[in-house]
């Protein structure tokens, strides 16, 4: 093409190839867009349709009503009350506004900003899951927050049910509480349908019977929008089934009596911790279990603040712990039941054989093992040795029995193993033996340690429930039952879903006559005057006190000690004509009430546990005469007067 040709062609024609090229570009662009559209919509349309459905449809759990809890007489121990909960979906709260929103929310709720921030940061789920900020919000506050939703992005107010415990601290150690799930809980339980804003039993029977109480959450398919708000229910996959209710063996009346007796002693003797347990020896049913100090489970149900929780957690007397089962102490002289029963059954002593008691025994290079009264009583039979709680008597019995046989018998009585009570966090206790010491200290037991073990000191430790359960087995003629606090699980309609039968751990391999001897010896403890005026009660009590030394000696060289008293009352508690001393009554195995009192670090003149049991029995059996011995609760040392 020459320059002249170029000149001659009209400009239009010169541009034609460019217009054609532009047309080609248009075709390519639209073709590419169309092809891609075809790929997305036609070729892969099904895949994206599924994704769109996944976006909008989720399977959601619908909470079921949590089961209720009653005592054995139908007294309501927990209620579900309607409450307002403030929740937050962190994904809907822009980070830049977080400080402002949290601050505003804190003011409205009367909380610390730090608590709210912590709740958000410890959110166990994704940013799209709801986090519980505050529970039990007053209605007026809830309305205010709901109205201010425009300036509180991500915050929502829900109406839901929460637990209310009408009796609070009286039974909180047993009932426990249900509270918000933690990240750790959720890790375990997400597959079982637990939600991030779910409630779970955290202590007591609320925890142990979580499955029964929770019921079966329903499932529904819901349509939601991008913010996660529920638009509508598409279909109900499974309806929720209300949780079962629990009927406890607990008798709130007896619980009150036990608490009253314990509180009285705590107040008077300045005790820091104490336990009273009442059990039915025929069944292993717990009738009362008081552990003080305690806490109000309503605090947890409402949502406890970090400050309140720290106060409970840092209390040296551990109010959150059920001392009746979760802590172990030297059992002291109550353990002589094991030593005596074992020696009688093994034939190491005869029923009428006497053993010399004196001020002290000497072992090895002149090491002295003292009688508790530093005098002794001369020759004693098993009845009087047990009755006076003679230490020199039982040193010798333990010596004859040997540590391993002693350990064998202790285990038969349930020491050194968890009783299996249906409450969480039970301690195991310690039963020393040669093997045990070899394992722990790499040495065999020394003879002196066998002496100590024979009187419930040294390495021996036990929980109050273990001690009481041993005496319950004595009272019922040799059946060691697993203690139980729940009698029945009831369906939502009131029918019985599950009945708890007495659960026998073992028949003690002890002859009836040996056990009868020990019951009579237990009665001798009272009748001999070892427990002071307990014998004056019009109610037949048999049992054993214990004074268990622990810790470090004071300036006078005396050790602090815990007081124990484990006792049982025959079915017919009042002395029958012809049985003024009640010996025939305790020879029978029909006791339906065994009781234990434990006083931690009781720096009193007398055995405060015995006084607690005495006062409990006075109240329980409505004894007119008040035999409480106030003098024994004065500050002092048990050993001082003896």
């Amino acid at each position: 093409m020459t320059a002249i040709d170029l000149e001659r062609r009209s400009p239009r024609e010169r541009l034609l190839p460019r217009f054609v090229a532009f047309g080609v570009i248009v075709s390519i662009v639209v073709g590419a867009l169309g092809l891609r559209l075809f790929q997305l919509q036609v070729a892969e349309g099904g895949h994206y349709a599924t994704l769109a459905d996944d976006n909008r449809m989720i399977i959601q759990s619908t909470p079921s009503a949590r089961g209720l809890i009653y005592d054995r007489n139908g007294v309501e121990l927990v209620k579900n009350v309607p409450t307002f909960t403030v929740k937050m979906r962190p994904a809907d709260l822009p980070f830049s506004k977080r400080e402002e929103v949290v601050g505003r929310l804190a003011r409205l709720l009367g909380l610390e900003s730090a608590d709210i921030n912590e709740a958000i940061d410890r959110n166990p789920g994704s940013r799209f899951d709801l986090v519980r900020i505050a529970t039990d919000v007053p209605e007026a506050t809830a309305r205010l927050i709901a109205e201010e939703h425009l300036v509180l992005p991500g915050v929502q107010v829900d109406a839901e049910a929460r637990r209310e415990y009408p009796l609070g601290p009286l039974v909180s150690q047993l009932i426990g509480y249900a509270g918000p799930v933690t990240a750790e809980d959720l890790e375990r339980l997400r597959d079982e349908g637990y939600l991030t804003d779910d409630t779970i039993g955290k202590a007591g029977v609320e925890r142990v019977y979580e499955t029964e109480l929770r019921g079966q959450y329903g499932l529904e398919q819901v349509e939601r929008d991008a913010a996660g708000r529920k638009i509508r229910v598409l279909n109900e996959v499974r309806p929720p089934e209300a949780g079962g209710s629990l009927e406890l063996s607990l008798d709130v009346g007896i619980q009150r009596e036990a608490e009253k007796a314990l509180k009285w002693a705590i107040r008077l003797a300045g005790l820091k911790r104490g336990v009273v347990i009442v059990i039915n020896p025929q069944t292993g049913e717990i009738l009362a279990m008081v552990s003080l100090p305690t806490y109000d489970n309503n605090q947890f149900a409402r949502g406890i603040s970090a400050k309140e929780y720290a106060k409970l957690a840092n209390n040296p007397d551990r109010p959150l712990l059920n001392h009746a089962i979760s802590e172990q102490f030297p059992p002291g002289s109550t353990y002589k039941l094991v030593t005596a029963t074992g020696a009688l059954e093994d034939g190491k002593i005869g029923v009428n054989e006497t053993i010399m008691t004196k001020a002290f025994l000497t072992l090895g290079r002149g090491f002295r093992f003292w009688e508790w009264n530093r005098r002794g009583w001369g020759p004693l039979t098993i009845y009087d040795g047990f009755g006076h709680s003679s230490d020199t008597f039982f040193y010798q019995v333990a010596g004859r029995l040997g540590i391993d046989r002693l350990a064998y018998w202790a285990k038969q009585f349930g020491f050194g193993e968890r009783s299996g009570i249906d409450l969480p966090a039970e301690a195991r206790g310690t039963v020393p033996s040669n093997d045990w010491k070899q394992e722990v200290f790499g040495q065999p037991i020394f003879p002196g340690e066998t002496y100590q073990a024979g009187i419930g000191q040294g390495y021996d430790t036990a929980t109050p429930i273990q001690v009481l359960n041993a005496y319950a087995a004595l009272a019922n003629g040799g059946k060691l039952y697993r203690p139980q606090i729940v009698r029945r699980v009831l369906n939502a309609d009131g029918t019985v879903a599950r009945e708890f039968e007495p659960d026998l751990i073992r028949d003690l391999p002890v002859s009836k006559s040996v056990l009868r001897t020990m019951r009579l010896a237990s009665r001798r403890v009272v009748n001999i005057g070892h427990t002071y005026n307990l014998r004056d009660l019009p109610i037949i009590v048999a049992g054993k006190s214990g004074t268990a030394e622990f810790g470090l000696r004071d300036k006078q060289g005396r050790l602090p000690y815990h007081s124990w008293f484990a006792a049982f009352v025959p079915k017919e508690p009042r002395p029958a004509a012809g049985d003024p001393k009640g010996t025939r009554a305790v020879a029978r195995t029909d006791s339906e009430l065994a009781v234990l009192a434990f006083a931690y670090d009781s720096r009193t003149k007398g055995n405060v546990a015995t006084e607690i049991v005495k006062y409990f029995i006075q109240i329980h059996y409505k004894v007119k005469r008040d035999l409480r011995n106030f003098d024994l609760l004065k500050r002092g040392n048990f050993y001082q007067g003896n």
Partner: protein
Amino acid sequence: MGTMRLEPTRVQAWAVKSAGAIWKAFDAQLVIYALLLAIFGLLMAYTNSAGTPLAAGTTFTRGLVWLALAIVAFAVVAAFDYRWLKTFAWPLYFANIGLLLASLFLGDGVGGVARWVTVFGLQFQFSEIAKILMIVVLANWIASRAPQRMSGPWTIVGAGLLVAPAMILVLMQPDLGTSLVFLAILAGTLFLAGASIRWLGTFAIIGMAAMPFVWNYILRDYQKQRLTSFLDPAADPLGSGYQLVQSRIAVGSGGLFGKGITNGTQNQLDFLPVQTTDFVYAILAEELGFIGGILVLGLFVLLLWRVLLAGWRAEDPFALAFSAGMASMILFQVLVNVGMVIGIMPITGIPLPFVTHGGASLISIAIGLGVLQSINLRQVRPTW
């Protein structure tokens, strides 16, 4: 001087035109395709005005008002002789720069972006009208160049110098997308109007070589993220990739026939943000399916044909360059907007002409089409 020879014939033709001839010269197709596209836009506004589409102030009613205004603007502009624009090219240019400066200083920010200026209570995005004004100025510049001089670099340099201030002002808003539209208009107009291919290529290569500089020193981090996240939206599905993932789901789940107007779950349940503006095509594809999506693309092809035809028929370099600018603008916006929605183009805030809800965009394009119609009315039909 080919153009000189053409002048008298054109004036002559104008003089003999009767009313019937004017009507014959009117391009009804151009109007019909544009109206159909605008109706798709209204449909999308309707589906997004959930519940009460006819209440005052909804996207739908506002869309109706804007469409009415756009039709008026189109009619008025078409009635005027477009040649007046040549006379006013320079004042228009400075008005244009002034508008962009005003946007920059008076603009209402959405997340630090100064794009909208509120006039009489209506938010107006001046950069939309700036695009049309820029096409006028550009066409005037190209038309003033003698054909022989088109073979050198200076036509291109001059055009670039004209567009650069506007581009920089838009980039400062910051509105990367619109500045890219300016670039597309510049390139497309120069190409179709006959600028030197060799020099166009040279400048394109220089431009590409400057890309690393632009990337490092001019683009902000979020802009880079938006530009690259379409390559792998799943890398940050809750952040910059979220819209892309949700948009793809919306389009894909629409299938062949779509879910039906107001039935798009991605739309109605708000899974897809900005469903009335930048991502409106995703909703269109979700609710009207592949059929609807292709129909809209087809309408754009037909519209482009009528736009280019108007310029081609006109024996006037200005008219040709103007239609070239309009076609380039529309094609680029369709490519970038639809491409973004279906995940083959980066995220930029470029509206889809007619369909995206927005008064400025619709009225600006109506004015542009008005100019094209005025060109049609004032030409002699070529014999071929």
